[in-house]
């Protein structure tokens, strides 16, 4: 749910990067943080365990374009992907405006992807939302590795049915596909907030 500050003419949107453990959610945020000019970003807050798993969440505020006189700011969050942190994931999803589902392309992570997507659907539902009516995209990460599933099969498992969403191949550690993913989900959020007929300023 967007937070509008009329005094400051500022709208805050919340984007959550969701997906199985080690899929590359934090890598996305790190690249966004590196890739944006200083004036457009805050500090990247990251709480990671010693083995690079996200312990709580990563947070990165980034500012973007102005729409109808309101500056927009996107707050990017990740969740810990490991199954034991479901309460944290549920908490992070509160007030979410858009979701990037970061899938791991490796063959041996396919089941984890499917389980994580089901977990996402369930957690969103518990917040009274419906994933099918929310802005969300899928990012198939690690496309540079050798032992990966074909795109067609990833789409079959994670993005089929009547309500398909945009999907992207990515190599998050190199930045490939990172901004396309973020821009698309952000624009989908803006459309939902302002309507398709509104022009950005």
């Amino acid at each position, binding site marked *: 749910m967007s937070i509008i500050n009329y005094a400051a003419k500022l709208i805050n949107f919340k984007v959550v990067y969701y997906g199985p453990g080690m899929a590359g959610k934090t890598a996305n945020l790190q690249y966004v943080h*590196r*890739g*944006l*000019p200083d004036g457009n970003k805050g500090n990247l807050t990251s709480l990671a365990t010693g083995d690079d798993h996200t312990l709580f969440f990563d947070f990165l505020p*980034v500012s*973007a*374009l102005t*729409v109808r006189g309101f500056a*927009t700011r*996107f707050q990017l969050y990740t969740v810990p992907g490991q199954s034991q942190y479901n309460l944290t994931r549920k908490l992070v999803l509160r007030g979410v405006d858009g979701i990037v589902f970061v899938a791991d392309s490796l*063959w041996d992570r*396919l*089941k*984890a*992807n*499917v389980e994580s997507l089901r977990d996402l659907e369930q957690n969103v539902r518990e917040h009274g939302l419906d994933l099918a009516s929310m*802005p969300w995209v899928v990012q*198939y990460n690690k*496309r*540079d590795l050798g*032992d*990966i*599933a*074909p*795109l*067609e*099969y*990833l*789409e*079959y*498992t994670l*993005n*089929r049915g009547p309500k*398909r*969403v*945009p*999907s*992207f*191949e*990515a*190599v998050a550690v*190199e*930045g*490939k*596909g990172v*901004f*396309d993913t973020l*821009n*698309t989900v*952000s*624009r*989908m959020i*803006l*459309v939902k907030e302002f*309507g*398709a*007929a*509104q*022009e*950005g300023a």
Partner: protein
Amino acid sequence: MQPTERLGASLREPNVLVIPVSVVTPQLAEGSVEVEWAVIEAQFPALASALPAPALRARFVGWRLQLPMDEVVRQLPPDVFAGATSVNPRGIDAFPPPFEPFSAGDSRGEAPASAASMAPPLAPPPRFVPPAPAGAAPTSVPIVVAPAPSIAAPPSASTAAPAPPRIVVPPAAVATPTSATAPAPARVAAPAPSTVAPGPAVAAPRAVAASPAALPSAAAMPSSATAARPSDAAIAEARAIAAELARGGAFETALSARDGVTIAAFTAPGVSADVAERLGRRAAPLVGGGACVAVRAAHASIVAARGRHAVLAAAMRPTALIAWADGVLGRAADGGAAPVLDDAASLAPSTHTRLVEAAVAFSGVGPAPAEAFVDATRGLSLYVVSATDARGAAALARRVWDTLLREPDAALGAVSWVTVRRGAEATIVRPLGSGRAEVLVAVADGERLGLAHRQAERAAAVLEGR
């Protein structure tokens, strides 16, 4: 050879596990596919584990093996996952991209995202390999099966060593996601065999049904002086077998009863329509007493066995994996008496300069008993490698020669080998490429048939001077 390699070579279909499509498709959307041990158990040699089969089943109730998804997915038809249409969310073009990396053209790694539906891919994506056509052997990839005991086999370093086992999904019709829970049905028909003249009052039936259960009733079958109506029991048996076979691929079923022999013919797509019926009829003298006969030939592969009420014959493409049909028909083989063979004493001792060497090649570990025989009446030479009754094996091979090899079948083409499996013993009859009537007869452990075929091929190469 490593134990896992020996196990792979000893599978019913060497180095291959055949998994029914009906098991695979309902699970595809889960990102993983598991198969119950009971489904594939028959493809393993009896001594594959330290426990007898019943004890294994009792100890690991509901044991399921996880299949390697890369092996599974690349064997499915490409159109299974097709249909993804371009997704372009409505209205987003009204807003410019909110975020721009440092500068356009900055080489910090940003590349046009290769959206599945919005932009070209980053790199050549892995392509689906269509299911192996019948004439092509699928690429070998190690199988990883969990939980333990694993049957993974590392890639062999030697070209002579067997390839590691592969999971094979028979290239049958694959259901769409919405109908994925239904097993791929066999296309079942009950045509009037061309050799059977329909009765004057009965039109030749050729009903095509959607499921094995839809075989026509016995009343619809033709009748004539030599062609009888298949019994209800035979039809019921054919239905049951068709349903079993359908789990591994599409087969068309036909029943014919003639001269006192009922043939239930199951024909896979791409195989001459009547070859199963014709070869089943020719193999009938061989398949009594629980025997299961397999024929690998240039234009088709045949598996035949005598069921309770009919001779069952399945015809597949020449390089099709016959393990599934072999297992289904082998389990159904229990009817009739063992064939009475011609007097083995009529076989005269003979020689072959490379016979001992061939026996070594077949045994794989050292000298093995080997004898040569000749049947002067037929002009047939038989080179037998057998630790048991060599003369009896030669007599069986002579019957195989008479029934299946002496007169070539145009629809079948040149026969590579015939295997008669009865109980724990398998007799491989392999015609030699000498242009003369010569066969290698190799008697092997039927539980390690894949390995036996490989070794028989080596022995044949020795005899042929290759």
